């Protein structure tokens, strides 16, 4: 079932397009990723979907009864309450449909916020505030979750935990939109659809699904030469004499040959799913 349908949506700020002609739809159980450079209009688009801005043209249709959870990329609100009280209040705002008190406690522990429960939100670092705001956004058990740069200031552990929570929400019928300026290749598997914001417009990245990637592993020998610029662009990891290259499958043979010419020991290859 479609939760949000966006048709030819455009927004201007003081004569400049924030975004234009955006068309897409978000369905239940779907996680959408929007990637774009700073200033490409991601935040403005999410603000519009969160009903904080009114578009100049186009239409956003919300399925009746939709509950939106929104994580802004930066919330300037000065919160003088403790994390415990603040999150409990936000949970109660969503009424009976929100997660239970016990579930919220579990989510807080999962996101590593238990030691900070009695600290005032305004005293926390940016990273911790981001986690509090993420918990606030999911505590209402929304069926549409809009996340603007959710992984900023987070290490891989909490990024992974956030993704687990997001995946769980999506598996239980919610739709999720995640906007970010960069995207780690390790998290792309979570997304059902990928969009890119370019020139203020949004395009779906269709080829990405079709493109099969392959990981090549080499060990460095004492006489190995420096990697060429062409090969360096595929470098995934270079740790403890081990070089990993992530390449399109079609280039596999050519790259192996070139690496052997540069005196690297080929150890193996594996296909990357999704």
């Amino acid at each position, binding site marked *: 079932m479609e939760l949000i349908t966006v048709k030819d*949506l455009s927004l201007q700020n003081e004569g400049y397009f924030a975004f234009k002609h955006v068309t897409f739809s978000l369905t239940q159980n779907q996680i959408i990723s929007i990637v774009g450079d700073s200033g490409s209009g991601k935040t403005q688009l999410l603000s*519009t979907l*969160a*009903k*904080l801005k*009114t*578009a100049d043209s*186009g*239409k*956003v249709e*919300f399925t009746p009864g939709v509950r*939106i959870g*929104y994580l*802004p990329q930066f*919330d*300037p*609100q*000065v919160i*003088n309450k403790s994390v415990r009280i603040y999150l409990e*209040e*936000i949970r*109660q*705002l969503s009424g009976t449909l929100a997660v239970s008190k016990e579930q919220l406690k579990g989510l807080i522990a999962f996101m590593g916020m238990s030691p900070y429960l009695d600290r005032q939100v305004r005293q926390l670092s940016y990273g911790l505030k981001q986690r509090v705001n993420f918990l*606030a956004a999911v505590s209402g058990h929304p069926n549409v979750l809009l996340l603007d740069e959710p992984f900023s200031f987070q290490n891989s552990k909490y990024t992974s935990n956030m993704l687990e929570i997001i995946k769980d929400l999506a598996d239980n019928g919610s739709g999720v939109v995640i906007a970010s300026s960069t995207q780690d290749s390790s998290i792309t598997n979570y997304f059902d659809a990928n969009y890119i914001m370019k020139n203020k417009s949004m395009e779906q990245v269709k080829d990405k699904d079709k493109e099969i990637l392959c990981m090549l592993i080499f060990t460095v020998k004492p006489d190995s030469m420096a990697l060429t610029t062409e090969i360096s662009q595929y470098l995934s990891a270079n740790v403890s004499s081990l070089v990993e290259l992530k390449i399109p499958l079609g280039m596999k043979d050519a790259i192996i040959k070139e690496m052997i010419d540069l005196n690297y020991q080929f150890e193996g290859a594996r296909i990357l799913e999704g």
Partner: protein
Amino acid sequence: MKVRILLSNFINSILQNFLYPTLLLAFLAFELTMNSLLDLNTSNKFGFLIVGIFLMSLLTSMNFLKNDAQYNEYFMQKISNYWLYFIMQALTLFLVTLFSAIVVFLFSFMLSSDIIVDLVAIMSLATTGFVGVGIAFLCKPQWNKHPYAGQMGIILLVYVALAGSSIDLLHYVSWFLPPVSQMITIFQEQTSIRALIPTAIQQFVYACVLIVLSGTFYEKKLSN
């Protein structure tokens, strides 16, 4: 629940940078020294209180709306009810103005033995403050999309509010002007607090009209 959260957030916004307590204490200090400094009679003193509470509530409301625009950008999304949010904003400022009116009147040492007179005086001060709240609400785009139009609106409305009844040219549109100076002139002519009741009611209605206009004009359409 929403009402409690909104009220606590808005009270925080009002007190955030200490402008309101500073203004209130400065006003009270001025009141305490006013008698010996200026040797005013009751009607002049009440005129001072009217002008003072008007400016104080205007500045407090402007400061609140500025803080709200600056810090509560995403707060309304959590409440997801524009009119509840807006009504609670107005209600919070009305309550703060009423509190100011009571404190200011108590410190003016103009208390009479007739409780009705005291109540009318407090009500007159409070409704004058409400007009300041209304003007701040009407010009609130100065903190958003229309900074210059909003500021010019404040200057113009404060001018006609304080000088309106002394400009003959504006006599024909006096119903359109903020009835603040009218309150002072009526009190000076009648020297009876009870004579202020119609003007106080007029001020209350005027403030409500300004606030309703502001709420309707600047309504955030929560759909596209």
